[in-house]
């Protein structure tokens, strides 16, 4: 009896998990389906859409009309660049907050997080003007700076949480063993925090890759990443569903693939410390 009850429970939980999973994944799935339909079929009712003929028509048009590779490369440069620079700043910052906390460390952490609560549009105009004056509009350098800054609080917070799990005595041992601060961070702290750093890196690449507000507002053509590539197919009339879907699919495919292959690392990093 007990076994039957357990099996039943398992079945219910499994079904529930699948429902949640499909609910989350469905929009993406639907975009992928739409991208393989003709423009005319894409606006029909769902059942008709499913029955309609499959075609690569949208992909060819999108390829002809815009330069996917350039946008893709911009996305790579912006997301990887901003994340790496962010990490270089955040590792020492998180080290300081985790291992030599001062009276105000908690406040600094809260203050950093509070910047994430500000609606970005609130600072759009000043940043736009500064960028215009500095000649940073529509440049990769400018966007890397912005993306680094907006994700820095999250990077520092994540690293701070991981570093707190590392026993301070090990760093003290390194100090006793003759390590300088640089050696201590480079040879002891960083290698020990690899799971945490890796998941921070992955998560921030994803966040930066998907960031749309700043990338759309501060770029025009040269530095435009894939978000701008998608946006160029959106129209208020909604007449280009298929092409828009094709562009979206192409834009999210790389990050989706990366996420798929690194999911183990991501989950391990995100639950680091939660389960000992």
């Amino acid at each position, binding site marked *: 009896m007990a076994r039957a009850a357990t099996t039943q429970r398992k079945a219910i939980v499994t079904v529930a998990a699948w429902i949640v999973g499909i609910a989350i994944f469905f929009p993406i799935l639907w975009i992928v389906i739409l991208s393989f339909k003709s423009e005319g079929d894409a606006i029909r009712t769902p059942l008709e859409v499913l029955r309609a003929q499959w075609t690569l028509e949208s992909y060819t048009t999108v390829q002809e009309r815009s330069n996917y590779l350039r946008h893709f490369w911009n996305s790579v440069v912006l997301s990887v660049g901003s994340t790496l620079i962010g990490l270089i700043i955040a590792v020492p910052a998180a080290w300081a907050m985790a291992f030599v906390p001062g009276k105000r460390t908690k406040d600094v952490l809260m203050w950093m997080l509070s910047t994430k609560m500000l609606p970005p549009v609130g600072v759009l105009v000043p940043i736009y003007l500064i960028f215009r004056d500095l000649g940073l509009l529509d440049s990769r350098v400018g966007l890397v700076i912005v993306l680094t800054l907006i994700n820095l609080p999250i990077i520092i917070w994540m690293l701070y949480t991981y570093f707190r799990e590392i*026993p301070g005595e090990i760093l*003290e*041992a390194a*100090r*006793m*063993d003759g390590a300088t601060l640089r050696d201590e961070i480079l040879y002891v702290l960083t290698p*020990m925090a690899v799971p945490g750093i890796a998941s921070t890196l992955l998560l921030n690449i994803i966040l930066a890759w998907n960031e749309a507000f700043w990338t759309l507002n501060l770029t025009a053509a040269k530095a435009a990443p894939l978000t701008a590539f998608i946006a160029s197919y959106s129209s208020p009339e909604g007449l280009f569903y298929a092409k828009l879907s094709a562009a979206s699919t192409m834009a999210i495919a790389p990050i989706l693939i990366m996420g798929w292959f690194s999911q183990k690392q991501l989950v391990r990093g995100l639950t680091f410390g939660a389960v000992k």
Partner: protein
Amino acid sequence: MGRITLDQVTKSFGEVNVIPPLDLTIEDGEFVVFVGPSGCGKSTLLRLIAGLEDVSSGQIRIDGADATDMPPARRGLAMVFQSYALYPHMSVRKNIAFPMKMAGVPEDEQKRRIDSAAKALNLTDYLDRRPGQLSGGQRQRVAIGRAIVREPQAFLFDEPLSNLDAALRVNMRLEIMELHKSLATTMIYVTHDQVEAMTMADKIVVLRAGNIEQVGSPLELYREPRNEFVASFIGSPKMNLIRGEVARTYGAQSIGIRPEHIAVSTDEGLWHGTVGVAEHLGSDTFVHVHGHGMGSEPLTVRVDGELPVRHGDRIFLTPDTEKLHRFDAQGLRL
């Protein structure tokens, strides 16, 4: 060389004064044990010497050179931590090599020193394992190996054995003592266990609330404790302290007599009492006796293991007056 001098050293954390002005000299090659109850500042004192904490005032000299503001890395001291503090991402070999790598010791010299340390510590077969794959005792040996290869001025041990089980602790104790004999390097060892202190030390420093209560060889502390605190802290089972009428007959505020310095008889003696609990260890028996007219605290008496005593028995006790300690109202030795 490894002569360490502390001159009027103090340490406070914010408002809390952990170490009041303190002077101490540790001679080259000495095995010094800092002992005291938890929170007495012994670990803090060790960390001040190590440089892991900054002194609030005063001066620390190592071999005559002012080390007060030196970073730990430059003091030439090696430390073994209670938690071993091994680098979990490195193999045993790399753990031991780390301080030499930091010091820029040439590769072949590193290899030579690792091999000899591994041989001395029975770690040769484990050099390529990670610390996570080792037992507690092996980990502690790796931590000691990491300390030895640096050829430091002095070794600092911060309760290195408290995470080990009892049998292993006794073994490691002997190993550390043998190490001291063969290296003849200064060692400073922190523990709350007075047995470790008694068995290992050349010199014991008894601490209470940051103050040095007494400094001396184990037998000096045992024979002539300067005050009640040291008297009851050193020795196992601990010294019996008796106050009141009985103490006054000896012209003291309180008297102390060790359990092994009381003779037991069934027919006559100076004091008499009733047997409470008897702890049979085989070789010895510790008898807790409720002395008549001697307060509510039972006296602990150490008797031969073969002596038949049972709960409720009436027995007579006679202290060895030669070995009786007398203390004044401040708890100081008379």
